[in-house]
Each structure stands twice: as C-alpha cells, then as structure tokens.
C-alpha cells in the first residue's frame, strides 16, 4: 500500500479545560487525490478538525502527518494548504486577479509566471473574463469559484473546503457540486470537504467520515456508509432507516459478495426473517436496518415470501414517490415506493411488507450510545 497523503493520529481539541473535547482522538488516513467529506450534524467538530489540519488552530493532542512529514507544529503560513471558507473570505479591497495572485505573491513567484498561473486558474473556473472586477460585484457562485481558484492556484498540498456550498441557493449548489468535483478530479488535489449535507457527501466524495460529537463514527466509501453503516447514528444520519430489534439465530450458510454471513433472525412481534451481517453475530441481539425504499409494499398478501401484515397509517404523495407509514404491531415502519398509474394505497388499507434478506442489515454490536458511555 502506498503511503497516505494525509494521516491524522489521535487528533484531539479541547477548547478549554473542563469542557468536553470538540474533537476526540480522531484518526483518519487520506489517499492521494481523494476527496474526503467530513459529514456530520452541526457542532460535531468538522470545522475544528479542518482548522487544525489547516494550522489555524493548535490541537490539544495528537498529530497531523502530510507526505510522511509531521506538520502538527508547522505554522499555518508554512503549510502550503489551500482553503475555501464558508463566507469565501475574498479580500474586499482587491480585485479578482489580485485575490487569486495573493498566494503566489507570498511565495515570491516571478511576476510573469504569476500572471500566467492566475489566468490559467481563472480559466479553470470559467471566469477568465472577470479578472479586473471588484469582488463585491460578483454573484455568490462567482465568488465561490474565485475562492476556489485562489486556493488552487498555489497547487496546495491539501485543498480544504469548509461548507463551501452552504451560502448558495439550491439550484446553484448542484451545479457547483459537479463543478468542484470535476475540477478536483482534474487537478487531483487531495481534498477535505466539510459538509452537513449527506447528498453532497454521497455525490462528491471518495470517502466519507461521518462525525458525531467529536468522534468519527464511520470512515468509508459512500456505498459503505450507506449500505453497511456501522452504527445506529450513521444509519440514521445518512438516508432514512427503519430500525428493528432482532435476536440473531443461526447462520444460514453462504456469504454475500462483500463476505458477510446470512442469518436467521427473530423480530419480536413480527416473526422470523433472513438478514445479513458481519460474521459471528449468532446468539445475541442486534439492531437491524432496512431502508424504506427496500421494503416492498403489497396491498394483497403475496405468495413468495413471508410478508408482514400491517395497516397504512399515513400516505404522503410527492409526485414521483409515495411515502407510506405502516403500523406493524407496536411499531411504525416507513416505506417508499414509486407511484404508478394504478391504485394508490390509502390510509386505513391493509398492507403487506416484505424485503430481501440482503436488504436487512444487522449493525455490528457497538451502538454509539454504548461507545460514548465507555
């Protein structure tokens, strides 16, 4: 395995003695050229982590290693990073070109080279024609691109983005999402990207670090964190999820493509089902996750599988899709289906739910609550 571009070891930040740490013994390795999203709810320590990597903040403990060199105590202005701030932080008293040239100036790049590189960077974000504009005469999206050009023109060791899209309207956000991703892939800049928007993270990132309360709950590819969440928090935060408590019985033999085992599980009040999970779960109780759109809703009992019978309590129609809440025993399960021209289910109808064993995933033993208590 090649050496990671960035490794973060036991990184901890405590803002004041006696306070809970904002970032708690965080570990992460980032491969060269990857875009890693730091994803989590407000206040979970994303910005704090990013600022420590940038050097804007001293960690309380732990270390940061880039290209095999420890930079934990390197001053911020010697780290050669590129950073884009939520507010863009363009210098208001400089025009677009001067903004982009600032980092090169600090590096004492020759004037002629500066000119060429600034022009190239502006072309890359498709704003070559706006070089002489004042920054306040730009739209939000344009300011955003200038900020990106300013960060990239210095060919940074790492590109750090702190919620760069949160100040844009929904439409523009999607455009910029693709644009940032394609620029990042073209420049192969190793990137840390802070966001609290799961769609953004799933769409753009090579790896996602799901953070909660200063801890990384899971670090993995978008499909990993979605399909195989490690904790209740991850399953709940990314996408929607139904949780059922399952007593795991014997392995039923065979293994899924990802090397997981099949189990027979017993859900109290509902019956026995098939499920997948890591090896060695037999004999204990685990949470089972099923995504709403993986539930099949039938209005008549089918023949193929053992369906769960319930009553439809709420139907919400959004055009393309139909969200249905089904009361089963003392639980409510959320299901989602695409609409068709046929009959629509109505509140009060009987419904029969079924799912494939591959879509019922058993969470590994530790729940975030247990881990936090430990």
């Amino acid at each position, binding site marked *: 395995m090649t050496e990671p571009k960035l490794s973060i070891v036991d990184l901890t930040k405590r803002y004041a003695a006696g306070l809970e740490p904002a970032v708690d013994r965080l570990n992460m390795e980032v491969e060269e050229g990857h875009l890693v999203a730091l994803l989590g709810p407000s206040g979970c320590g994303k910005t704090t982590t990013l600022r420590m990597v*940038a*050097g*804007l903040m001293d960690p309380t403990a732990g270390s940061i290693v880039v290209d095999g060199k420890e930079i934990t105590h390197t001053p*911020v*202005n*010697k*780290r*050669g*990073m*590129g*950073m884009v*701030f*939520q*507010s863009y*932080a*363009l*210098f*208001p*008293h400089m025009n677009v070109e001067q903004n982009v040239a*600032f*980092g090169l100036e*600090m*590096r004492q790049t020759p004037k002629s080279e500066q000119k060429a590189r600034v022009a190239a960077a502006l072309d890359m974000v498709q704003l070559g024609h706006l070089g002489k504009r004042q920054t306040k005469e730009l739209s939000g999206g344009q300011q955003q691109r200038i900020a990106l050009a*300013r960060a990239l023109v*210095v060919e940074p060791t790492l590109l*750090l983005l702190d919620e760069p899209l949160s100040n844009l309207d929904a439409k523009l956000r999607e455009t910029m999402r693709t644009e940032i991703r394609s620029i990042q892939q073209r420049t192969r800049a190793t990137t840390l990207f802070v966001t609290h928007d799961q769609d953004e993270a799933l769409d753009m990132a090579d790896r996602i670090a799901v953070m909660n309360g200063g801890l990384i709950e899971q670090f993995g590819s978008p499909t990993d964190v979605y399909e195989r969440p490690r904790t209740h928090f991850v399953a709940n935060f990314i996408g929607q999820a139904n949780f059922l408590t399952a007593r795991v019985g014997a392995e039923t033999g065979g293994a899924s493509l990802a090397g997981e085992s099949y189990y027979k599980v017993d859900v109290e009040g509902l019956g026995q089902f098939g499920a997948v999970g890591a090896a060695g779960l037999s004999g204990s109780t685990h949470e089972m996750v099923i995504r709403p759109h993986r539930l099949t809703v039938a209005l008549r009992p089918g023949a193929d599988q053992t369906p769960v019978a319930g009553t439809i309590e709420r139907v919400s129609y959004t055009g393309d899709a139909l969200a249905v809440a089904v009361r089963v025993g003392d639980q409510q399960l959320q299901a989602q289906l695409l609409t068709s021209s046929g009959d629509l289910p109505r509140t009060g109808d009987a419904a029969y739910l079924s799912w494939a064993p591959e879509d019922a995933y058993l969470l590994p033993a530790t729940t975030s609550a247990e881990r936090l208590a430990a």
Partner: protein
Amino acid sequence: MSDVRIFKPRFNPAKPAFGLLVFLLYLFLLAPLLIVCVVSFASNQYLSFPPEGLTLKWYEMLPQESTFMEGMKVSLIVAVIVTLIVLALGVPAALALDRFDFKAKAAVQSFFLSPLLIPSIVLALGMVLLFGPLGLTNTYAGIIIGHVAITIPFVIRTTLMSLATTDTSCEAAARVLGADSWTVFRRVTLPIIQPGVIAGGVIAFIVSFDEAVISLFVAESGLPTLPVQVLRYVENSADAAVAALSVILILISLAVVVVVERVMGLRKALR
C-alpha cells in the same frame, strides 16, 4: 363622527408647526457658528450690529497676526504628532481587544475609553502638577502627552467598530495562503479596517487641534496653542479678526466632519 375623519384627511396644523419648531431649534444649534461667519465678513470696526458692509479685511489681517500664526503652527505640529502617536498606540490595542480573548478584556477596554469620563479640567490640573517638576510644562512633549490621553478613546472606539464588522476569515485565508502576521496586518487587516482608522485619526486630529483646557494649563505661558491664543484674544479685544480665524477653524472641523461621515458615518463614530 370619527369615520368622517378617517375618509377626509384634513389639514393638520400640528405638522408644519412641529416642522417650524425643529427648524428653529436647528437654527439655535447652528447660531454661534453662523453668526461667526457673518461677523467675519462685516466691516464694522468693533463688534456691533447690523453689519455696515462687506469686507475681507479680517481675513487679510490674519497672516500678519503673529500670535495666531504661532498658535496655528504649534497646534498643527501637536495635532499631527498626537494623531500619529495615538494611531500607533490605539490601533494595535484595538486589534488585541477584538481578536484575542483574555480575562481582563472588558476592564482593559473600559480603561482605554475612561479618559473621556474624566473632566478635562481635572486631567489638566493633574498634568500640570506632574509635568511641572519634570520640566515638561511649556514644551511640545508636555502638550502632546496631555493630548494622547483624551484622543486615544476615539481611535480605539472607531477601530473596534470597524474590526467588529469585519470577517476574520479574510485574515485566516491570507495566513493559509502563506502570509506571516505582519503581512496579514499590512495587506489584509489594515485595508479592511481603514475606515475606522481614518475616522479615528481625523477625530483625534481635530480633538487635539481644538483642545483648549489641557493646553491652557500645561503651556499657556510658553507655548500657547491656537485655541489658547483665541481664548486670550476673545477675553481681551472685541474686533472681528478672531471671527475670521474662527471661520478657518470651523472649515477645518467641517472637513473632518465630511471625512468621518464619508468613511464610517459621524453618528457611528461618535456614539
């Protein structure tokens, strides 16, 4: 009865009456300044009304009045040096007060603003008492040190106000891009807070330039500033030469007012 009133908006005499009252009060507020301007162009030999004719002779006399010219020189030198000193002292202090967190912060800030809470006559007496034995009375150094106390609060206040409204991420961005602390200050912070610094600077200038009480106590006999000369002149003679001089002083103040209003707003700067 009342519904009739709603549909027929009548002429309301209270409105123009209130307008007239406000106009008269403005007139009262500006009266001394306006009258000084009028008198400065009147040809009456001694102060009296109505003006007998128009003349520029009082203005022509000014350059020959050596006391005024001396005073003007002293006041200008003092005000310029005081401005430079308080900017050099006040801007970094404001920076520390806004950008850093420390325990005594609120106390330090109040301390920097507190000279405005002390009557200038009391300060002036303290200064003459202290400066006398040190040989600082009747020297530039004495007046300048005296004026530093009363001008620093203005610089601190306007600079703080500018700092409070700026986005610190600009400074962070510059640091990430490779700028050291001094470069960040020179290339980013200072240009951004420039309005507050300029406003503080020109206010400090005019406060020092117009200051009379401290100058009177500290340097009346040896190095009278312009306001001290005017004070003496007004006490002793009644001709209109001093009116012409006053108009010049008013114009200088007006220039300061315009600058402050343009860069950050007079009301904000003086609050």
